[in-house]
């Protein structure tokens, strides 16, 4: 049984200590990193430490945070912004709201350090308005910090100033996309923008450069500044330093739990740590990455949880959800369900995502209803490439992961439905009466 508790960095054990109040957080050494940075380090040095620590974006893209900051800092704009993305795109992920509820001051300290490193004087914290407790906790913490001269003008009597605005919104899945958040801050409809240009080059308001980071990324920065890059990188894989918050579900309907694990741990160890070793052996599949993630068979449980090994297996870090599916799950039906959910959550801006995912869902519904033909599999393969290649933002790029992994690891579920017109696990019920047909429509 791995002892991941020892490497907990950002998640505090409730029994261990309550650091929600400013005094409790300061008594544990809170805000010492900020003080150290403001009084002893230049912004370049803070940035360099983050680069050295190999801190990668926890939002899923896995870019080096320090590099992103460097580009923002080197921009010639006089006004720069920091946005903390504390919005759980997948409503089943609890990572951001847990952090905000349990450790809000470390988030604020991380935002301030980021602002110091990139030279920003305004920061936004974007959260999901429906998680009321998290929202209240972070509002309370910001208020405390403002009163203690940790946020606002001339922080800690230095010439560094930074304000933090907390924004809550309910935008469904798309609210987690960084350009959607910038659009919402600007008061526009929440739809992503094409990248490049990246926010680091062309961001908030009138093209001001903006460093937008996940809350989980920023919350690690105080530790790096306080303890040094080497100490931070001592936990994690060679590729990715540090830990990751995961929301683990024993079954699609069970109560979730949040755990913090070092990068590079295997899926089996993670499930053991969450106390699900016996449940894992009885499961049918493990879904890694949440709504846009893929499903892996149990034989893949020894995959290391890190960006590249997961991508090779066909799944993603995504929203940091690990979920076990019951052994009698029909994977065609599962992929159909995921695809139907994503159809509803798409912002509707670009064609491949708005219509492509809908048509994939329709074809999968046909197969589940035993109306499929073998040609459908070729069409699905075509669209599994078309949607990621054509889509505008990461949502579309990842939207076919459920389909792709289901076809890759469980092809027999598809062929049983199509050739024998029955469900391999006997669980599917027909959902449509008409399959799509091709009609010749030329002059």
């Amino acid at each position, binding site marked *: 049984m791995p002892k991941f508790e020892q490497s907990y960095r950002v998640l505090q054990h409730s029994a261990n200590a309550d650091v929600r109040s400013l005094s409790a957080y300061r008594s544990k050494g809170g805000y010492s990193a900020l003080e150290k940075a403001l009084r002893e380090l230049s912004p370049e040095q803070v940035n360099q430490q983050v680069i050295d620590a190999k801190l990668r974006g926890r939002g899923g893209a896995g870019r*080096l945070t320090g590099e992103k900051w460097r580009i923002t800092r080197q921009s010639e704009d006089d006004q720069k912004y920091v946005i903390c993305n504390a919005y759980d795109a997948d409503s089943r992920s609890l990572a951001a709201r847990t952090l905000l509820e349990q450790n809000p001051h470390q988030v604020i300290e991380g935002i301030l350090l980021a602002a110091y490193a990139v030279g920003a004087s305004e920061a936004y914290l974007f959260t999901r308005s429906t998680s009321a407790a998290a929202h209240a906790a972070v509002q309370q913490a910001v208020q405390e910090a403002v009163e203690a001269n940790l946020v606002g003008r001339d922080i800690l009597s230095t010439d560094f100033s930074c304000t933090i605005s907390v924004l809550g919104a309910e935008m469904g899945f798309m609210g987690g996309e960084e350009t959607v958040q910038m659009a919402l801050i600007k008061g526009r409809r929440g739809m992503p923008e094409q990248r490049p240009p990246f926010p680091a080059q062309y961001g908030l308001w009138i093209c001001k450069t903006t460093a937008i980071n996940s809350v989980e990324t920023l919350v690690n920065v105080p530790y790096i500044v306080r303890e040094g890059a080497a100490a931070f990188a001592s936990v994690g894989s060679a590729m990715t330093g540090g830990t990751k918050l995961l929301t683990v579900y024993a079954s699609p309907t069970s109560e979730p739990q949040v755990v913090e694990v070092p990068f590079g741990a295997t899926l089996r160890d993670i499930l053991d740590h969450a106390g699900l070793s016996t449940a894992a052996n009885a499961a049918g599949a493990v879904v890694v990455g949440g709504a846009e993630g893929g499903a892996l068979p149990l034989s893949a449980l020894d995959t290391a949880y890190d960006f590249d090994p997961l991508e090779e297996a066909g799944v993603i870090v995504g929203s940091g959800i690990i979920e076990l599916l019951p052994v009698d799950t029909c994977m065609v039906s599962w992929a159909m369900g995921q695809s139907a959910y994503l159809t509803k*959550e798409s912002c*509707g801006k670009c064609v491949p995502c708005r219509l492509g995912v809908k048509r994939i869902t329709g074809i999968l519904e046909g197969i589940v209803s035993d109306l499929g033909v073998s040609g459908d599999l070729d069409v699905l393969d075509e669209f599994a490439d078309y949607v*990621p290649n*054509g889509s*505008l*933002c990461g949502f579309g790029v990842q939207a076919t992961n459920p389909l792709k992994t289901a076809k890759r690891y469980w092809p027999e579920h598809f062929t049983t439905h199509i050739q024998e017109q029955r469900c391999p696990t006997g669980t599917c019920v027909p959902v449509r009466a*008409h399959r799509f047909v091709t009609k010749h*429509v030329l002059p």
Partner: protein
Amino acid sequence: MAISIRDNFSPAAQASQPPMVRNDVGHPSFTLTIDGKTMQAYQGQTILSVAIDNGISDIPNLCNDEKLEPTSACRMCLVHIEGAERPLPSCNTPAEPGMVVATNSDELFHLRRTNLEMMLSDHNAYCQPPCQVDCPTHIDIPGYLELIAQGEMKEAARLVKEVLPFPFTLGLTCPAPCQKACRRTLVDEEIAICRMHGHAAETCLLDPPLPYVQDPPTGKKVAVIGGGPSGLTAAYYLALRGHYCKVFDMQPQAGGMLRYGIPEYRLPKDMMDREFQQLWDMGIDFQANVKLGRDFTLDDLFAQGFDAIYLAIGCWTSNDLRVPGEDAEGVVNAIRYLGDKVEGKPVPVKSGDEVIVIGGGFTAFDCTRTSLRLGADVHTMYRRGRTEMGATTEEVEDGEAEGTHLQLYVSQTRVITEDGRATGVEFQRNKLGEPDASGRRRPVPVPGSEFILNCDTVIPAIGQAVDTRVLDDASGIKWTKWKTIQTNPHNFMTDREGVFAGGDCQMGAKTIIEGVAQGKLNARSIHSYLMGEDMNEVSRRLELEERRPDLFDIVPYKPVEPKVKMPMLPYEKREKSFALIEMGYLKEQAQREAARCLQCACPAAGQCDLQKYSIEHGLADNRFHDGEPSDYHDYDTDLSHSFILRDPNKCINCTQCVRVCHDVIGPDCYGMFGKGFDTIVSTPFNVSLHDTDCVSCGACVQVCPTGSLMMAERSLSRYSFALDRCIFCGDCVEVCPHGALGETPNFELSFFNRFGEDVTLEKNDLANAPNYLVRQRLPRGKKDLPVMSPLVRPLPARSIRD
């Protein structure tokens, strides 16, 4: 957390860039490579604008406009950029020094085509009505069907009469090429398009509407030779134009082949005469029993003061069988046989006779069914198969049901005679060989398969030809090698000035509707000739109008609605009876049938980018038909605004209207609403545009790449303008969002002479001021719009029924 993005473009620090070069006005520029060509670009340009500036115009895009911020929603302008893993939209990607871009590849083509297929799969609309295109006269079919569905029978008849003077007659006799093209077959069955206008005209046969108000007399005189469908049509439209027309015919009554070639059971002649009565009421004269070449010549007519002559003499000579014995008694001329029957003269067929009809066209079946009604035992012999027959399937099936013995793949080899009388015909069986020039497969005789069929009468009906003896060389008319009258192919003038020809005598024996179409075109050509227009220009114009447009179908979700069948006379009542076999629709039946029309008409057809790109990308099929209702959208149209008509069913969510209204004009009337698949561009809460801040500028219509936003017809001919009070402040120029007003060096404010043609606004001293700048107009058209063929008249937008 954030949505995960594992796309591989990381915001890496830009490598050391080659130095910027400044051009002659100091703008920093650099070079990049697009499609292997090195191009100069300026800082801040997108790849798309660099490509367009350098003559690469084939990057498709549906959501970009030069005056709008790019949004890259349509994903049509994707290009490959070296170093990027995914294709990127060129409309939004900044050009960078040293970039290597490819704008075309198989992968991009398929991506773009799939994009278009996706858009079409939820594009609940049509482009152009193929029925209207396939109809030789191009009747506004969706238009009159809509009117019939609303019960407006007389108005429907009027609309048809704009291009077809005899809707009742044609409603009974037309082979209906429109119905073969009907797109309703993709849903269930075609619509009874042809019988519909027959019904509409029947309701007002005694009080027929005129399509237009007749023009006052022009004093010009036109002689029409031949009173058949083509000649009468030309006379009709020429008379409407105010010209005096006189029709000369060799038969005792008007109608030509309509009267003498079509049996009574298909077309009651008394009803036809009622429809013709409108012609005589319009002042057209008719002279019967005079024949060209026998009683008068072309020179006689010109000498009588006619300004133009229309030759529509038809095809009245039956083709020879070209077998021995065809001169024998008992071998009957098909045309004369049908004509004699109509006139009530004795015919050589009587009850109990054995009759052989040779041929597979309309005339063959008219002879067959006439002989059947006379009580004969009829054998219809055709040398090819059913699909190659000239007659319609209904005609053939009816003939068989009425009792003819149809034999296919047989050729006559000789007529067997006894004492100069035909007693039988020897046939030989055929198999089909290679296709011939007409595209039909050539019959090849099978040796040794000869057989003999005994008979009393043989009626060869294997085609007709023009009687070339009526015009001698002195007439100045030349003949083609097919022995038809030679004319200009578009303006139909013969080699003799002022003499036009059309109908069967110009094109060879064809259908009635084609004759009518030629009569209509000839009337326009003759009118232009009489008005002194350049005939080359007329030819060019008519050619353009008749050019077949590019069609594109989409088959949206529509509920199945069975066809209302035409009530027919039962077969047992047809024996020895020449009663009309089509009993006609009741009004309710006609309305129900007309309401099945899908209204395949989009006013934007021909100017629609979605249509253009779909054709360019060869989209032959769409894989998403016939799904569940939830797979498609069926929105209500908003026709409440006076100038701007919205049909969200055609919207592709490009958001150009949203951006132009918000960013360029300002009122911000549109937005994107809904989420996921149900996202749609609309007004807030989908209210009428009247209830928004809309200023009716029409900029949204201008940018709309499809027909989703259309301008309603409006007539703004002239504003009242107090010239003496204008202080040339230029405010009007400033605020007009449409760029309709502008300043020019001589300070003419109006681009379109909206103040009237005589008003020129000048202020020379201002124009000569040293700091004067010609104001940049707003870019008007986003692209070079293709010239729309006016063949299909753009229809006013109508509400779309379910």
